[in-house]
């Protein structure tokens, strides 16, 4: 039996993001939100561990009320219980404040063996929540996991690093972050989706968690955003189309030589 907590982020679907041409600011209003890709791998890994060892899976997220939709998706994939930490005061949290709220939520949930997070989120891409949460809960961490197994109370994992693959082990409880190579997240069946609608989703506010206002949201954050703009990318955009191969490559080869980059 293994009690697993999966941290999930309902992220902005960055592929659908548009840039305001006059201000160069990204327009986030109206952009669809979805489960951050790597977090689906985290859910899938939890489900596979549960299939092998039994236990429960609780999916925790901090977000707006509409994150409930993403939680339901994870419950359809095989999660047992959802937990939404939501409060207007949580808006504008950086990783310091977010990890605080998540840690308080996880403490309130009670005992667990394993926390699984995605390696990073598709919109923020900071890879900070896993390590910050591990520190707050005083847990060992194993990051960038591309395969893992549980044997008794020991997790053995392969980590993908720049200079090679590291094989490590640690006793539970611990926190792991997974890469998107670790598995292929399942697409839930219609039956599973229907079944998931009756699963419990706990919804906790700041007062339910007992977190003070100055530790959450913008007030509890150390990072202040000054501006967000799309980078200027001035590319020539000379595209050769509908020409015979010989002619096209000759044109390209000359252009490359002329650029003086080779």
């Amino acid at each position, binding site marked *: 039996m293994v009690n697993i907590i999966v941290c999930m982020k309902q992220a902005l679907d960055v592929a659908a993001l548009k840039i305001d041409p006059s201000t160069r600011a*990204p327009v986030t209003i109206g952009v669809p939100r979805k489960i951050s890709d790597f977090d689906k791998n985290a859910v899938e890994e939890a489900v596979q561990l549960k299939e092998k060892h039994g236990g429960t899976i609780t999916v925790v997220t901090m977000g707006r009320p509409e994150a409930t939709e993403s939680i339901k998706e994870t419950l359809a994939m095989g999660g047992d219980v959802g937990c939404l930490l939501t409060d207007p005061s949580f808006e504008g949290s950086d990783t310091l404040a977010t990890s605080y709220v998540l840690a308080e939520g996880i403490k309130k949930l009670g005992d667990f063996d394993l926390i699984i997070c995605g390696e990073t989120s598709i919109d923020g891409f900071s890879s900070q929540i896993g390590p910050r949460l591990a520190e707050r809960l005083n847990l060992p961490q194993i990051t960038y996991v591309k395969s893992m197994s549980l044997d008794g109370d020991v997790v053995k994992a392969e980590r993908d690093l720049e200079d090679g693959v590291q094989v*490590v082990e*640690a006793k539970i409880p611990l926190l792991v972050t997974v890469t998107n190579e670790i598995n292929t997240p399942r697409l839930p069946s219609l039956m599973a989706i229907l079944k998931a609608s009756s699963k419990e989703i706990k919804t906790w506010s700041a007062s339910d968690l007992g977190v003070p206002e100055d530790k959450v949201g913008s007030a509890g954050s150390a990072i202040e955003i000054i501006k967000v703009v799309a980078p200027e990318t001035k590319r020539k955009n000379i595209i050769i189309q509908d020409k015979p191969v010989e002619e096209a490559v000759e044109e390209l080869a000359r252009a490359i030589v002329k650029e003086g980059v080779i």
Partner: protein
Amino acid sequence: MSISESKSVWIFSEDKQVAHELLGKGRELAGDLGVKLEALIIGQNVSDQADEFFAFGADTVYVAEDPMLNVFQVETYASVIADLITQYDPEILLIGATKRGRELAPRVATKMETGCSANCTTLNIDGTTKRLLMSRMVYGGNAVSTQICQTNPQIVTVPPKTFEKPEQEERIGNKISADVKIQESRVKILETRKRELIGARLEDSKVIVAGGRGIKKKEDFRMLEELATTLNGQVGCTRPIAGDLKWFSEWIGLSGLMVKPDLYVACGISGAIQHLAGIRDSKIIVAINKDPEALIFESTDYGIVGDLYSIVPALNKALKENLGK
């Protein structure tokens, strides 16, 4: 402690090359603030590296040596760095954004209850507030966020190769043997399977010829290798090719290697934004793709719409002729 001693700029990377790069930028920031540049060296028998750190610009080097620090372990290293921060109170801490650095920095930042900006590629001191202005890519590379950290130390991670390694100068500095409490790691390393490094590192290459999902078989990368050879470059790939198909051990993109060659040739790469973010700083980007609607064409200088299987060998031939090879 006097102010000039207490408000220094610190740098750390477990990768010596990256640490040297950070010293270059750190020197500039410390100069703007009128404070000392200080570096941390952690490991076993690493004390003699200090001279090199002085030559690259460090005023002070804190050396933490212990058999327990022989190999990078995130819990252990985080405990050492946090202990040193508590003792010496730096203003800014730059950490190399290697994979190890990226898991270390948030752990240290949490111990110190401070902020951390990850993967920053532009760093400046704000003239009025004297805080560090940090810029990083967000939304999958669609935008750049400029931010400041309101608490100390201001922690920031910097990807390898973001800043040039400075020229070495004949300088001396102050080496301090650090007295630190070391927390033992609860994670045990059983084995490290080193990656074979063939030739130079991809990040160092002036020309990169990269393949994506448009390449049907692993053997077909030979075409790209031939083109790369003509251009004195190296071959790279996208995350699906390395991560899913495992034809290569590393990929180019936001989650992998960030590259900035003089010439980047993208073959059969659709242009997922995470990939584009990893090549954004390339001088010239060339794309070959059969889909005229492929996103990559929006971010290229030159492109050919067509079948890469006929274009790549033909381009190789044309380049050879143009280069007189």
